[in-house]
């Protein structure tokens, strides 16, 4: 048995009569980028939320780096190295871009019961923060209040905050949502630079991005993972074509 970074077994989640996860099994290897695709309402965001700890599965287990994390809260999972970005931008609107990422750094720099020293003049927080902003292309916008950033920039900040926690597994929920074509291309190019050094689960609608970035693709339809494989395998899979790709 290979040592997977993430191992998901028999995940079931019902919202009333709606089955958002219907016995999902999969794993993610260290360094791999796994894309999760599927039609609207397939349960992609619910899956990310269950991995990040925002939603508890009804049954099933999640192992992260060999540890059963199924019962752990979201903050505890985050401290173990699971970071998520949200499909609907979730940042601190009244803080500057730098404050946003510095907070993400701070969350992983021991406890925060430090009452006196100004956090924003502490290079232990701001230096890694600036580095991450530079990386995602916000290097010139560090002191702009997040609410005043353009939509595309806020999406970049969203990803920057997840990255600033230096996660072992990055969960990206439609990072290109609402972006223009040019911004999307830049984000895709950036995510491509993370490949290999960062393990990623990517939920995305844009098939170009998926085929460019993913090592493996998992197809989710009505809470069931109907296929996983390389992009060639997925493209050739008749069930996938019927359910999802074959509409053209």
């Amino acid at each position, binding site marked *: 048995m290979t040592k997977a970074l993430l191992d998901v077994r028999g995940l079931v989640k019902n919202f009333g009569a709606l089955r958002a996860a219907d016995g999902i099994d999969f794993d993610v290897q260290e360094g791999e980028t796994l894309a999760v695709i599927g039609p609207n309402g397939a349960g992609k965001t619910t899956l990310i939320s269950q991995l990040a700890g925002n939603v508890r599965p009804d049954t099933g287990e999640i192992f992260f780096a060999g540890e059963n994390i199924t019962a752990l809260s979201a903050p505890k999972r985050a401290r173990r190295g699971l970071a998520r970005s949200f499909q609907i931008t979730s940042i601190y609107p009244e803080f500057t871009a730098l404050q946003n990422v510095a*907070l993400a750094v701070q969350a992983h720099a021991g406890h925060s019961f430090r*009452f006196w020293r100004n956090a924003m003049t502490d290079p232990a927080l701001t230096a890694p923060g600036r580095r991450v902003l530079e990386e995602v292309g916000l290097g010139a916008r560090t002191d702009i209040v997040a609410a005043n950033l353009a939509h595309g920039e806020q999406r970049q900040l969203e990803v920057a905050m997840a990255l600033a926690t230096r996660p072992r597994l990055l969960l990206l929920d439609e990072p290109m949502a609402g972006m223009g074509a040019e911004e999307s291309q830049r984000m895709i190019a950036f995510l491509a630079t993370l490949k290999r050094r960062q393990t990623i689960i990517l939920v995305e609608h844009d098939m170009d991005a998926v085929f460019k970035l993913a090592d493996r693709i998992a197809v989710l339809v009505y809470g069931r993972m109907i296929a996983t494989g390389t992009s060639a395998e997925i493209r050739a899979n008749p069930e996938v074509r019927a359910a999802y790709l074959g509409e053209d």
Partner: protein
Amino acid sequence: MRRRALLWGAAIVLLAALPPFALALGQAFYIDLVRRIMIFALAAISLNLILGYGGMVSFGHAAYLGVGAYAVGILAFYGIDNGWLQWALAIGASALVALAIGAVSIRTSGIYFIMITLAFTQMLYYLGISLAVYGGDDGMRLKIRSQFSGLVDLGDSVQFYYVVLALTLLATLLIHRIVNSRFGMVLRASKSNESRSRAIGFSPYAYRLAAFVIAGAMCGLAGALLANHTNYLTPDFMHWTRSGEIMFMVILGGMASIAGPLLGAFALLLVEDALSAWTQHWQVFLGPLLVLSVLFFKRGLAGVFAHKHD
């Protein structure tokens, strides 16, 4: 930045210069008035930490005013008038009460948080009324003000004034440091977007509880000062209208601003003083004034002094 430093400098000089001027003009009354205002400002400053920066709408902050006052009063009742001891007990007991109230109420949010903090404070209010030994609902007189080994004499109106001024400024500085520290950043971030805070790895509960305890302890000190100021203490210190008054000072002055609670306390209590000297029905006039001020100053009085964006 320089503008703000200038304004603070001017305010401190004005407050420090008040007693000699008031005495020279034969208006010693103003020393007492401003001292009282600053004691309430201290209470408002402490509430601002959890209300303004932490987003915790505590409708029971007067509880700690009462606990602090009773700590002084009860020790004095048994003949212990050592101020160090009295004030240490006021701060310690308030912190403990805040820890208990906070531990329960911070698990809730929104309207439930407001109601739970209010309920706890009303419990303490009725506890005060039921304590017949300490005067029940009549309260009791403080026969002698807190004694500080001859270092300062609170019986001297001017000395007491400067003690209150120093403590209020110290509290302002302390809150300023706290809200910009790592601790303060977590507190403010969790007010801004709790789910984001949890997603990057913060568990807000412990930080909120710590802020709640700090605020309670600081307000307990204000209670100890208030008991000395009035030479009297009653359960009314803990009445819910008192909590509302302190909350109003914070909102009027400007939530989550350092100068806000000070400005709010001065504005509210000065207007109250002027109106009550003018007419017996001053509350009829105060109400609309408050409504107008909240409508007009969206970011509180502090927003008037601030630039467009902070």
